[in-house]
């Protein structure tokens, strides 16, 4: 009985070692760089040309200033974007930039519409986007933005 207990503990310890390694080594270079401590990252950055080093160092500092939960969320969202096809990724990034650049008054209107659309099923969303009363509130560019974003990106705060 004691021997089985010892073997069980050995197996458990081995599993923990392996899973710990897998977590530490998981992900691509970007994720690993972002997960590093500033000291570890510095060792990687010093292999780059000085100009690039300074630029990236500044970007990483900005990233590190974000709260941990925000960093995790951004990493998750970035991984989601990476999982998309390059065309879809490009489209989403462009539409997000366009949304971010909207004047405040329009952004409030589009944000509400986007949140409503995100709660619908794909069929309901399609029907809503095609409905005349809905369409009349937006320009063609805004409608396309709403369609692309609501169909391809889970909006923050969506249940």
């Amino acid at each position: 009985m004691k021997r089985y207990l010892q073997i069980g503990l050995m197996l458990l310890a081995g599993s923990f070692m392996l899973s710990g390694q897998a977590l530490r080594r998981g992900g691509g270079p970007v994720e690993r760089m972002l997960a590093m401590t500033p000291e570890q990252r510095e060792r990687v950055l010093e292999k780059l040309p000085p100009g690039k080093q300074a630029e990236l160092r500044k970007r990483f500092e900005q990233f590190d200033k974000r709260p941990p939960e925000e960093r995790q969320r951004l990493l998750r969202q970035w991984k989601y974007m990476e999982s998309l096809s390059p065309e879809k990724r490009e489209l989403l990034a462009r539409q997000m930039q366009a949304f971010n650049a909207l004047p405040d008054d329009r952004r409030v209107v589009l944000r509400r519409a986007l949140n409503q659309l995100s709660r619908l099923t794909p069929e309901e969303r399609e029907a809503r986007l095609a409905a005349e009363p809905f369409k009349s509130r937006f320009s063609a560019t805004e409608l396309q933005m709403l369609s692309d974003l609501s169909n391809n990106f889970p909006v923050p705060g969506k249940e």
Partner: protein
Amino acid sequence: MNCPLETPETADLLLAYCSRRLSPESTATLEKHLALCPSCRSFAEGQRAVWSALDSWEAAPVSADFDARLYRRIGHDLTWRDRLLRPFRPLLAYHGLPAAAAACLVLMAGLLLEHSGKPAGTPVPPDTATVEVQPEKLEQALDVMDVLSEFDRKSRPENAGSKL
């Protein structure tokens, strides 16, 4: 001589006699007893009948494809579990050996992963040594995260947290 049928210690004498495995001296002694003892004589005659029947019996010839059919049938009757375990059956006979072997393997793998690529005495974490630096890719990722962060902030409904 005591009667072999009534004496447990010498009971096998009769069987050895009937199968012709008894020494000539013992055979002579036993035959003297058989001449006097009807129970032993009757037993010996019965045994002799069995032996002569076995001597005259000839097994039916085995068909040419007997082996092939037998192995096919054995293979058919085996479950997948039996087939998988068959090569390891001798090892499984020792209780605890499979678990110990699995524990050793897991520990060895863990130790190998723990120490691979790290020169002795060098405090450099293994991750930094193995990361391939692609500045463009990093910048691109950070750009996307900036856009995502701004979009997250600007598209979030009032009093709501992010889910993705």
